[in-house]
């Protein structure tokens, strides 16, 4: 770096900011050539900036590090802060799955093998984060690849799931049995809405439908963040 680095300082700070932003929101390590592609600059340059960023954090005594891991860069907690993170994990984390997450897990458990898109179609919302959490926590895993176009990953429950539930095999789960309508559906039915029993059936079309939002009125549409 040395002298030349000083000249390019102003340019670099923009790139640095962009890289910090991208790495902050990325779930997986980001490959330097992907960054290079996005920034339209040489990979070497990206790598130099990333490593100067990492050095900077270390020098400033930050609680996080920028790590080169698994073929890419990722923000992580600083190893020296492990004790605090452990304390947070043990005491602070929600100790239960949200009802949304539990419902997603139930869908996977009862409908496995099932693709992410199929789960999405049933839930009516994006399930990426939840699926990731369930996978990360070892309750579900990829059990197959859909032979059809797209080769979607098919998820199923894991051994860890069986252990947590205290059952030997998936078929030990209680039968879904006769459908008992919940209060919401009862209310909807009372209001003259029709139940659509076919929804339970998984169809190939469901996957195709996931992409299209049923919302209309394109001109007045407003982007609303939906990353919940």
């Amino acid at each position: 770096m040395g002298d030349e680095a000083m000249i390019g300082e102003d340019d670099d700070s923009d790139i640095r900011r962009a890289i910090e932003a991208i790495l902050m929101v990325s779930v997986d390590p980001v490959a330097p050539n992907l960054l290079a592609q996005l920034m339209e600059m040489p990979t070497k340059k990206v790598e130099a900036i990333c490593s100067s960023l990492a050095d900077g954090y270390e020098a400033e005594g930050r609680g996080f590090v920028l790590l080169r891991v698994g073929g890419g860069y990722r923000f992580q907690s600083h190893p020296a802060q492990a004790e605090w993170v452990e304390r947070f994990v043990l005491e602070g984390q929600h100790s239960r799955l949200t009802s949304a997450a539990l419902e997603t897990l139930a869908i996977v458990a009862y409908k496995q093998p099932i693709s992410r898109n199929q789960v999405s179609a049933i839930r009516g919302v994006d399930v990426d984060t939840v699926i990731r959490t369930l996978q990360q926590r070892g309750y579900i895993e990829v059990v197959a690849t859909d032979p059809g176009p797209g080769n979607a990953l098919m998820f199923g429950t894991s051994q860890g799931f069986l252990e947590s539930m205290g059952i030997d095999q998936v078929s030990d789960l209680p039968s879904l049995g006769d459908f008992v309508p919940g209060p919401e559906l009862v209310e909807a039915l009372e209001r003259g809405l029709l139940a659509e029993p076919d929804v339970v059936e998984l169809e190939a079309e469901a996957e195709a439908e996931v992409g299209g939002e049923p919302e209309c009125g394109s001109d007045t549409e407003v982007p609303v963040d939906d990353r919940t």
Partner: protein
Amino acid sequence: MSVTVSTPVYEGPFDLLLNLILREEVELYEVSLSSIVDAYLAELENMDSCDLEMATEFLLIAAILLELKTRRLLPTDDRFDIDDEFGLWEERDLLLARLLECKTFKDAAVQLRRLAADASLSWPRRAGLEDAFLHLAPDLLAGVSPVDLRDAGRRALAPKPVFHIDTEHIAPIRVSVADAVCQMVDEIPHEGTVTFKSLTEGMVDRIAIVVRFLAVLELFKQGIVEIDQVDTFGDIHVSWRPGADRAEIDLIDVYEG
């Protein structure tokens, strides 16, 4: 004046009404409903699919406008009962209150839109726990029984209600003028006359009687029957026209008056 309904989409039941009244202080009775309908239909054609909600809202707006229009166009009775007059005012005040409320939340929604737009520029970190700490994380399924899971499954897989319009109250019209014509050529004697009352004997449905009446008029138009009404509001006598051939009857599929 011309009301140009140029809004790309009608949204919110009172929006249009609100705009119409506020914009250039539109006099309601000058609002041409047909021009609004035309603009609306043009808009519908531009859309890929019919938005039921939008269509419904439009109908509601049209109904409100129509109601207000008729109220304005009808001459005010000087001997108007004061209670009725109050009722009218109350109704209008209610509408006014609703319009104001609608406007309030409309403006609030604009603010939410701004907040959301600003917030959407910033993405949250979602990477979560690093692998090294995963073993420490408490079992999220602790305390969750298989029955709990089944209940969650039932909730998630329950049939979802779909939008459905109850049309049971709309009686389908099952009688056609063409059918009535066919039936009546057999019922009208070739000699002598028959009364319309007897032709519609036993019919309860008003629409069926109307259709029969139209059928008689149709036969008259085609020169098959003669019609005679002696007294005002008296019974109508129908008789077969001498020399008329039933083969000449032109059966009409669609009656267009």
